């Protein structure tokens, strides 16, 4: 593993589009070559070196490349977009679209992130020590094929519209979630350790949602069917089990309809 350290020394006046800050783009490049990679501030294209000092060369492949981002990256978007392997560590806050369309590898953000992070994720891990904005692990605008796989773990709270059109993978939120969780989901698992505000599982076809706290305003399309004991993210607990959304179509497997499941901790 080789480490490339980017230190923000000349922060952008607008926001910086950093979709080229990935192990895939850095692999096989020297520090000087990495400093020449394109980033965009608004519509103006500049070399990465205009904003960052670059230390260290990339590894031979993405999997052998680690990127560490230092300095104020709170106006930096799209880091790790579409990455397939390797590692990114952001030592503070970052802006929107971190880890969007990620296929593999790992991103660790030590601060907070804004909206659209882990969008349409297919694989890999996105770890956020702070809180996340809206549309965490959601589908891109208009798209009905949302998160397919991978893990998103947020230590703090998440905004609204988490996991829209989720098809697979796992999202774990340490704090609370705002409205709209797993809307239109057809698979995947969302675990909320705190409370959920409401509209949880609206138009959900399939998939699982665990809420350790309360759902402030549960939807009428879910029906209580019993109690279960399960181990969820290392915690063994009893949950009330609801199925739904009964207003939505549901596939039939082995003669039985498949529903979305909501579990709330007793």
């Amino acid at each position: 593993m080789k480490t490339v350290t980017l230190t923000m020394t000349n922060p952008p006046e607008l926001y910086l589009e950093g979709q080229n800050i990935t192990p895939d783009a850095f692999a096989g490049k020297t520090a000087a070559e990495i400093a020449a990679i394109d980033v965009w501030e608004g519509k103006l294209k500049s070399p990465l070196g205009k904003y960052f000092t670059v230390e260290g060369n990339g590894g031979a492949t993405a999997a052998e490349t680690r990127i560490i981002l230092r300095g104020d990256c709170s106006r930096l978007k799209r880091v790790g977009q579409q990455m397939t392997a390797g590692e990114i560590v952001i030592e503070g806050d970052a802006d929107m679209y971190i880890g969007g369309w990620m296929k593999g590898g790992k991103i660790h953000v030590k601060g907070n992130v804004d909206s659209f992070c882990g969008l349409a994720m297919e694989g890999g891990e996105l770890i956020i020590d702070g809180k996340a904005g809206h549309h965490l692990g959601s589908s891109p605008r208009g798209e009905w094929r949302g998160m397919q796989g991978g893990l998103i773990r947020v230590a703090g709270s998440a905004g609204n519209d988490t996991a829209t059109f989720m098809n697979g993978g796992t999202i774990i939120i340490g704090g609370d979630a705002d409205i709209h969780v797993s809307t239109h989901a057809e698979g995947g698992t969302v675990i909320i350790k705190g409370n959920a505000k409401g509209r949880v599982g609206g138009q959900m076809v399939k998939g699982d949602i665990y809420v350790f706290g309360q759902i402030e305003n549960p939807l009428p399309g879910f029906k209580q069917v019993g109690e279960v004991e399960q181990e969820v993210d290392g915690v063994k607990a009893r949950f009330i089990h609801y199925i739904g959304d009964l207003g939505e179509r549901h596939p039939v497997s082995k003669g039985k309809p498949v529903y979305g499941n909501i579990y709330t901790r007793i």
Partner: protein
Amino acid sequence: MSELLIKNGFVFDPLQGIRGDRMDIAVKDGRIVETSALQHPETIDASGMTVMAGGIDIHSHVVGPKVNVGRLFRPEDKLFKSPLKRCNRMEMGFSVPSTFKAGYDYARMGYVFVNEAAMPPLHSPHVHEEIRDTPIIDNAAMPVFGNNWFTLEYLKNHEIENNAAYTAWLLRATRGFAIKVVNPGGTEAWGWGLNCENVHDPVPYFEITPAEIIAGLIETNEHLGLPHSVHLHCNNLGNPGNYTDTLDSLKLAEGYTPKNNFGREQVLHATHLQFHSYGGDSWGNFESRAPDVIDYVNSHDNITIDIGQVTLDETTTMTADGPFEHHLRALNNLKWANTDVELETAAGVVPYIYSPKVKVCTIQWAVGLELALLSKDLMRTFVSTDHPNAGPFIRYPRVITWLMSRAARDATMKTFKWLERTIDATSIDGIDRELDLYEIAQMTRAGPAKALGISNTYGGLAPGMDADIAIYALNPENMPENPEEIEKALSRCACLLKDGVVTVRDGEVLTEPPKRTVWVDVKVPENAQVQRDIYEHFLRYYSVNLGNYSLFEEHLFNPRVIEVDTTQ
């Protein structure tokens, strides 16, 4: 004075019967001229290459409100597909491209004329605004008549002269080109949650059948002598077993002969026939009935068709056939847009994935190709994908490659999950026919131009015609072994001249010569009754004022008017 000489190309012009002869084409001031008329021409060396007239698309949904609904509700259609500004204007989208991309992509393929397949009359200003914004290619747009209250009321009483006067008025009000009919009666029935599933299924509240609408509009069209014929999207699109309804629709043209001064020989154009040539009575036993349908077309020369070829892409369906889109939404559970256009029509939009893993999709793929390959008259059988319904128009080069190469068809069929069942349900595997470039020129230039009644200007290379000329890096004496090379050559033409201006070179758009809007202005005798009917309908039913309905002159971009005078 600009003079150009395209030297030594293999020229294909079915309108003049030129079959790949090595010859020069001369251009002067935007028109094709005799070579002797040139004095000091610039030359374009076309040796070893194919020279044809610019392509003509008889049926494509590229401009207007429902196309724009598709653009708006499918932002994912642009995702990661729109990174570049290659030309003057930004390009974006795949199945529902931006207006700019549509114009550039048609030009890159060597096309110069595109007939917008469905214009909701009430929204004609939007259609014309998008025509203005679609660079390079000339556009016409067909207002829809098949569910229009005026049309239904006149034809119920067989008032052909009144319907003709109304038609002439609406063509002028919308700056329209021809009579389009979509699911006659069925779209009006959709206002009540119903449909007309065959040509004898009566339209609720109008006491008329689709058969009477179709026949009445054919009579109206020939009474007026319009350049194009009635352009029909038959009832019961897309359903198993619909080929009998299609044959019933086509039979309505029997006994009618074309009356016009534009060289048109058909009275009915049946569009995207692929969607209308199905057997079986469920998705389980869904099968091709293309041979039955094309046999009928082969033996009735007053009908033309376009195929509506499925391209096996993720695309966006959009049609004035409102009930069909609702039906499709229930099949694939994807998002759906639906709208009613008061007194006139409706529309629906649903994304659709034609997957090589789905049996119905691969049978549909075969049906379109069967129609073309079993056709006995390619001057009456045209290439289309009903863009974007069966696939985006940028796949025309691929469709043509399938038509020209059995190996290309076989290579595609190898990707099918249900290959055996597709072969069993269609005749595609028994067809070895490979079309040549002359036949392709018939299906993409000469044929559609003639059927649209514009073959005095477009679709050929005779002196006096517009100098719209496409040159492809294809040598008919030495065609590439690899069919993908054919597709590549047709996707990015070596050169396109639009009105004599070198517009595309090696697949790159160089310049944007001014495009035109082609419309048909019909002079009819004064008709006090129709004028009163229009006045009263606007007073009683429309939510807009009659004075605000007709297209304002400033919406019309660079018009080319085709005049028809029925008063003499």
